[in-house]
């Protein structure tokens, strides 16, 4: 009896492993994306153990080129560029993930209500159209000018312009789903509105929202770097990639490594998240995938 159970267990786990391998073979981009992002997350979490203090000043070794002591060289205040690049991963991941989570949550709530309640819909969508007419970066810059610089404010300033796009997406999904026979059936047997939204409509928004969230995350990482680069982002002492590039640009012609390493990390992170988004889109929504291929 016990032997049989054991056999069954082995069989089940092998099946799961086979399924995982099969998924990986079919969706290499998702696997590669998740792997690189996991490495980046580990770098961010264990930053204090793999790098020195990113704020430590050492005026003796100002603007040194990459060497054994300072792998990526030092900046104009003698700070270790490697340490600052490693700690920059924290800022970018924090901003990217927070903006993705916040904008999809807020957009989801507004989108569900707008898609289902006719009177609210007209007003909300006019406001969303108006907000979408303001270019995202400009919008964020204006909000930063109001709030003053801090990581928290950067997250808010990038989230607000992203919300209308999520609202549109969710509303579009709701408008198609609400015409489905099973929703009509639920309505006809007297199911209350909150239950219809949560039980029948919400699950259908999950796949497109996941895809949208990855794209929002990628764009948020770029916009954070741009804001910091323009001097309207994270406070100057924070080791973010945008800040590093803003400080390094003065010395760019003679000390290009000041821009090279944060720029490279930024490009890798955004590329990974975008590739993951494409992979998720192909996996979760075969209809779009067919149209794109």
């Amino acid at each position, binding site marked *: 009896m016990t032997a049989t159970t054991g056999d069954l267990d082995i069989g089940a786990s092998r099946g799961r492993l086979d399924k995982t391998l099969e998924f990986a073979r079919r969706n290499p981009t998702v696997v590669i994306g998740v792997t690189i992002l996991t490495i980046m997350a580990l770098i961010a979490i264990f930053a204090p153990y793999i790098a020195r203090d990113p704020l430590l000043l050492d005026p003796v070794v100002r603007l040194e080129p990459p060497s054994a002591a300072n792998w990526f060289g030092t900046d104009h205040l003698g700070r270790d560029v490697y340490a600052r690049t490693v700690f920059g991963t924290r800022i970018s991941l924090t901003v990217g993930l927070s903006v993705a989570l916040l904008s999809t949550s807020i957009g989801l709530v507004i989108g569900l209500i707008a898609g289902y309640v006719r009177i609210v819909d007209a007003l909300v969508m*006019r*406001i969303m*159209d*108006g*907000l*979408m*007419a*303001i*270019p*995202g*970066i*400009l*919008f964020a*810059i*204006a909000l*930063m*000018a*109001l*709030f003053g610089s801090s990581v928290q404010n950067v997250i808010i300033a990038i989230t607000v312009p992203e919300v209308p796009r999520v609202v549109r997406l969710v509303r579009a999904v709701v408008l198609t789903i609400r015409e489905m026979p099973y929703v009509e059936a639920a309505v006809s047997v007297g199911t209350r509105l909150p239950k219809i939204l949560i039980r029948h409509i919400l699950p259908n928004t999950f796949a497109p929202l996941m895809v949208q969230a990855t794209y929002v995350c*990628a764009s948020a990482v*770029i916009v954070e*770097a*741009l804001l910091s*680069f*323009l*001097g*309207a982002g994270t406070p100057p002492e924070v080791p973010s990639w945008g800040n590093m*590039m803003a400080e390094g*640009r003065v010395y*760019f*012609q003679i000390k*290009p490594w000041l*821009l090279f390493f944060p*720029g*490279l990390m*930024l*490009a890798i992170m*955004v*590329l990974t998240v*975008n*590739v993951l988004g*494409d992979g998720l889109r192909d996996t979760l929504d075969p209809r779009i995938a067919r*149209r*794109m*291929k």
Partner: protein
Amino acid sequence: MYGYIIRRVLATIPVMVVVGIFVFLLLHLTPGDPAAVIAGDYASPADIARIRAKLGLDLPIYIQFGKWVWALSQGDLGISIFSNLPVAQLIGQRLEPTLMLSLATIIIAIAIAVPLGVIAAWRAGTVVDRFTMLFAVLGFSVPIFVIGYALMYVFAIKLGWFPVQGYVPLAKGFWPFLQSITLPSVALAMLYTALIARITRASVLEVLTEDYIRTARAKGLTSTAVLMRHALKNAAVPIITIIGIGIALLIGGVVVTESVFNIPGLGRLTVDSILRRDYPIIQGIILVFAGVYVIVNLLVDISYTFFDPRIRY
């Protein structure tokens, strides 16, 4: 058809109203006293009172709004706090570099992206197609300032083919102007090209499966004729739509590119105004850029009637 155009024009009104209310409220959304925020950390109470009176912040909010809208309708965008010059004049002075940079970028992007997308769709699954898709993902992912500095390092610093930074007005000669604008517009065009190429490919690919394409091929038309006259024209609506929507990305990119290449345009004016907390200028620029976006997309909507006669509802 005229009914359609009139409806599209009328539809822009609520959008601009929302933009206007947002821009007006920008100053009043500030946590605390807007006059104190503008005056900065080292201002005396007298300075703050002076700014409050100058901006009319001591009046009731609906009167402020009424006055602001009335001034706007006369083309008056207010007075800069820092330089005391009219905002409309300051924006006018900075218009040329931004306009030229944007036009050059749009021309480069369309000239590369549309042929690339058509070829990728025509040769779907081949090396050309894979290259295009790789380029599209890269163009989305590598931030403009990274591309900008990379181009600057190779072509201006190492090879010396172009000036490193700065802008030469068109009036000072076409060749120097072209040299000064090449690198910034190429850097800015990457993102826009990626966007347009991707949509062009998808859109042409879909059209190529239609029956009338098979008919065109069957009656012996050359591949070029089929692609240009039948496929591209029918695929035009999504392509033009994305060119219009992409204007928002382009405007955001202009602000960054001008900072990277030290171009004295509207983008630089925006960044400078933020550092000086010069709100009337920020408000004016947002209004102008949002207005441009809305007008471009209105033109896009109207152009649909040319490419697809069915759209005349």
